[in-house]
């Protein structure tokens, strides 16, 4: 694997991406599209990664005093949480696009927007879908926990099964929950395959690109 030295003059936030050579890759990329330009983006991503480590039950507990209980607060928490992996993967994906391709596109006279939706987004689509897949899997898990704050769902069966030590009730909740997560994971896995540009399908998408950072219960 090719390793790149950190160029001394580059911003300390600009981490070299393996497989890409040339000093000043950051500066070079910096003039393509807005998400490269924004100096806040590494900070936003760092904050997002940190927020994402907060466990589900803890997240609910922290927000109940503000939002109260019921279906609506649960939906707000789930919505907020699903933003995180999607935002993160989209950002990481867009940054991983080879700058040579962007250069080539610009050389052909494409505008920044054209580069974004004709080159960068198609190349990033599998990674974005991987983020959506992750978010969907997390939410199955979080929605189960949301039963605790009165949001209903399969979690109700699991928790009353545990409370009354009723195996049937427990399994009636746990089996569909597990299947739901597996089916959602499988379906989004297929979608990821479908949105992968045909030219890239033969190429093995490295696990590092799709690596899930954290799965919280």
């Amino acid at each position: 694997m090719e390793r790149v030295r950190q160029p001394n003059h580059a911003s300390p936030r600009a981490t070299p991406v393996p497989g890409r050579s040339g000093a000043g890759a950051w500066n070079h990329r910096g003039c393509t599209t807005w998400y490269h330009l924004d100096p806040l983006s590494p900070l936003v991503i760092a904050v997002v990664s940190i927020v994402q480590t907060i466990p589900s039950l803890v997240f609910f507990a922290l927000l109940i005093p503000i939002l109260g209980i019921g279906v609506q607060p649960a939906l707000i928490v789930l919505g907020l949480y699903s933003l995180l992996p999607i935002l993160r993967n989209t950002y990481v994906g867009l940054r991983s696009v080879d700058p040579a391709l962007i250069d080539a596109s610009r050389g052909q006279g494409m505008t920044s927007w054209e580069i974004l939706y004709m080159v960068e987004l198609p190349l990033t689509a599998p990674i974005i879908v991987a983020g959506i897949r992750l978010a969907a899997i997390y939410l199955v898990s979080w929605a189960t926990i949301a039963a605790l704050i009165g949001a209903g769902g399969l979690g109700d069966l699991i928790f009353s099964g545990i409370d009354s030590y009723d195996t049937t009730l427990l399994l009636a909740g746990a089996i569909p929950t597990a299947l739901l997560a597996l089916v959602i994971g499988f379906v989004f896995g297929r979608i990821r395959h479908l949105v992968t540009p045909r030219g890239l399908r033969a190429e093995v998408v490295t696990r590092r690109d799709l690596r899930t950072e954290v799965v919280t219960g």
Partner: protein
Amino acid sequence: MNLSEVGPLTFEHLYLVIIGTIIGGGVGFALAIWVRRRPNWAAVLIGLAEVIQTLPGIALLAFLLLAFGLGDTTVIVALGLYAILPVLSNTYEGLDGVDPVYLAIGKGMGMTPGQIFRQIELPLAFPVILAGVRVALVTSIGIATIGVFVGGGGLGVLIFRGLQTIDTQTMLAGAIPAALLAILIEVGLSLWERRLARATASKR
């Protein structure tokens, strides 16, 4: 609300997390070593571990409850199961990413396969393995909080009690330390990884 409970429960929480991660991480590491020259097995095992990872925490705890009963054992087994994938896949990937040139150099210097593994491959793969351990630890902190529903200890006890009695203070007394634990481990190990990665990069 008794604040003096927070300390011991935090330690209990960390204890569960560390034991679970050591067991699961050990299994993951051993499996990675075993499958590294067997790519077909690697795909199968990583796929299986991924299925486990996809299962929602509370569902897995519910299944394990039937096998292991109420108590910390169930929680530790669940934490161990969740720790397998990150350590397994990162160890495999980390060892896979070591430049074969270094292995050839080691061999040329007369190193035995054991020495090459311990002195070249493992140190070079270490930052990636560490990332796996970090993910395992942070995941475990989350699963351990919901371990309270199957009779486990730790900070989940306070959160659960607070939820049941609608006592915000007790809830936060459990939630804030748990969130801090996860964040501290994430940030601390990420910084360590970055330093290690920089060290290995500049040595090359």
